């Protein structure tokens, strides 16, 4: 029945001069989501630092779930717009409230925000009058409860008109995608890195994804799983790329060259090198991983610090302080849980040293990296990456590299 949505913006009060840019990014993302749904016949207007979407006919059921994936949105409120006159507002309130089943008992309250002070009636009085109209219509079925009501009817009186609503959806919050810059997210098939990506989408990062494919040590089934995860993470982005980087040869070389207990950490080290190389080519400013402090041997403070030392770019680790259980809970929010849980082959466990190094010899590490820069091999594997592009409509296509 609703033909209007009010979209409140998160954290905008922080962004003085950058506001127009933030609104532009958010508007663009909302429009892309509508395009993806094939939703036509609507306008989007900025009204007092919030967006109002006006649809010609009631919007589809898919609109709200799509908007829940847009970073930067605080709340999404289906509203009925009316002229700012008390009788009209009453009528709108009754319509928004809907029908009640016989015998149904509900506690409620009316909450009014009178942003337009030209409206002659104070907000408390507006609430009282609207509440009275509801009590009169549903005699005996409603009870006013100010502190913890079952339903809240909201009235927003603005210079552009009055908006009446009685439900709202909590958005992703954070910052519009693209406003925080471009990063390379190193993706695996597990739980952590997809959640890390979700969190960085929430903080407004545009992302390109790097997956290090250990073919032929693992099969292409793993890649299929990664494509599924990529498809999910792309829902939070405005079109993005996945670089499937052939890494089997490098892993084999490393495994043969280094001491066995250093295998895992050096696999990561050279992934960081390759990711930096990719970041340089794509002009991305940071890397992102799913590291959580102490979770595995390569994620100790010492090893993380050492990996940082050899990275030209900052490595973002949004999960560093999260417990596994919290990460898994977040993966359900990000909707990556059900894909991550599918078992897959991974070359790290195949090559896994019997005793991975926890306190590495940093001298050996430094010498190894100096003696084996593998520049050519790294350049080659990044250049030979298969590039999958996912546009706003969710369609995957293979792309030629642009560098």
């Amino acid at each position, binding site marked *: 029945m609703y033909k209007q949505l009010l979209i409140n913006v998160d954290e905008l009060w922080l962004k003085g001069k950058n506001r127009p840019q933030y609104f532009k990014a958010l508007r663009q993302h909302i429009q892309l989501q509508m395009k993806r749904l094939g939703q036509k016949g609507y306008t989007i207007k900025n009204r007092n630092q919030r967006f109002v979407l006006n649809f010609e006919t009631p919007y589809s059921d898919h609109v709200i779930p799509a908007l829940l994936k847009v970073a930067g949105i605080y709340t999404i409120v289906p509203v009925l717009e009316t002229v700012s006159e008390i009788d009209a507002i009453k009528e709108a309130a009754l319509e928004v409230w809907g029908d009640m089943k016989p015998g149904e008992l509900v506690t409620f309250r009316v909450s009014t925000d009178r942003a337009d002070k030209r409206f002659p009636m104070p907000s408390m009085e507006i609430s009282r009058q609207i509440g009275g109209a509801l009590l009169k219509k549903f005699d005996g079925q409603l009870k006013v409860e100010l502190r913890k009501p079952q339903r809240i009817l909201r009235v927003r009186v603005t210079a552009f008109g009055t908006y009446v609503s009685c439900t709202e959806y909590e958005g992703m919050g954070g910052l519009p995608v693209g406003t925080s810059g471009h990063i390379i997210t190193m993706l695996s098939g597990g739980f952590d890195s997809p959640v890390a990506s979700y969190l960085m989408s929430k903080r407004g990062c545009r992302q390109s994804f790097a997956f290090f494919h250990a*073919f*032929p*040590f693992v*099969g292409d089934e793993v890649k299929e799983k990664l494509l599924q995860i990529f498809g999910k993470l792309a829902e939070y982005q405005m079109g993005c790329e996945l670089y499937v980087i052939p890494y089997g040869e490098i892993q*084999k070389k490393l*495994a043969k060259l280094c001491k066995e207990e250093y295998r895992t950490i050096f696999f990561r080290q050279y992934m960081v090198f390759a990711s930096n190389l990719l970041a340089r080519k794509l002009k991305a400013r940071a890397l992102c991983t799913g590291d959580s402090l102490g979770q595995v041997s390569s994620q100790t403070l010492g090893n993380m610090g050492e990996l940082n030392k050899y990275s030209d770019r900052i490595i973002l680790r949004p999960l560093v302080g999260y417990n596994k259980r919290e990460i898994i809970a977040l993966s359900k929010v990000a909707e990556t849980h059900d894909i991550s849980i599918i078992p897959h*082959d991974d070359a790290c*466990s*195949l*090559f896994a040293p019997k005793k991975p190094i926890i306190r590495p010899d940093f001298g050996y590490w430094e010498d190894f990296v100096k003696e084996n820069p593998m520049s050519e091999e790294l350049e080659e594997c990044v250049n030979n990456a298969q590039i999958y592009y996912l546009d706003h409509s969710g369609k995957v296509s293979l792309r030629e590299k642009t560098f």
Partner: protein
Amino acid sequence: MIYLDYAATSPMSEIALDALMKASREFYANPAAGHKLGKAMQAQLEKCRQCFNDIFSVGEKGTVVFTGSATEANNQILHQFIKGQGTIHLSRADHPSIANTASWFRPERMRFYQQAGGTFSPAEILAEIENCDVAVMCLVNNTSGIRQNVEDMARLIKEANPQAWVHIDAVQGFMKVDCDYTCPWVDSWSLAAHKIGGPKGVGALVLKNTKNIKSFLKGGGQEGGLRSSTVPLPAIYSFTAQVEDLRATSQALIKEADKKSDFLKNFLNQQKGIEVLFDGQNKSPFIISILTKGVSSDIVMRHLGEKEVMVSTSSACSSRVKGDSAVLTAMKLDSSLHKNLLRISFGYQTPLSELETFCEVFADVWEDLSFLL
């Protein structure tokens, strides 16, 4: 490219290809049609059937039904016994088109026999045979390549219970091992054209006795009412041409295959960490299964694939994803080794030079992967 997965399916022989082309051009009419051309097609079809009748000594009471696949033929036989009360004797070591039909039957009717080391034990099959409705055996197992003594087994079953239906899946063995196809104790056989160089999409169900056998499909009542579907005469014609040719040549081809098999086994036995399985048993020379110890065979398979050599594994899982193979469990192979099984299977047309190249490539790959051991 070196293709060594003939046990999965084989490329078509020139003879079969020529026959398929010719028949597709000329024998396009429907053999069920009443017109003159249809009658000619029917005659052609019966000529094809006669070839199989001769090989299997199918008499008045029996017939050969051309099916879409051996899976269909196996299913059709087992489906006849859904309503019975007797026991169903089959093995999980055999092809899924046999093993997976178990879901049709009440569990208490099932008598799964093992094939420890790849060979069945007659005593196990004969247990409770007096109440048996149907017993199914494979002439050659598709994983081990072992040639089972199905003729003697059929006789033992029939002596104990003449009412039991004996069905032999001969897909991997037909024209690849010596066998007495006229064996009077066997009631039915299933065959597939594509395993012997014929076209895909055609198989045969050889019935020594058609009593009580019903069509699996409802339809036009083709194939004497035993298989409704428009008869794919070009494919059947091609299948038959290939079989006719092999009737004359297979003895010599099998002898050659024995030599090729010995050559491969010799090479593989010299590789450190490689164990040739089921060696020394009565086997089809065309199938060699090995264990790649210490390295998942799918890793070896993909590395060989990168060098354009195609072999197969029993399961697609390696280091992390566990999953025991029901086939290998039934052969009593330790489950820790399931992920190490690699199957190399060649065909009549595979020249020795290809196998030599295979050996070179395999040695390189195996050496390259030795760091994983």
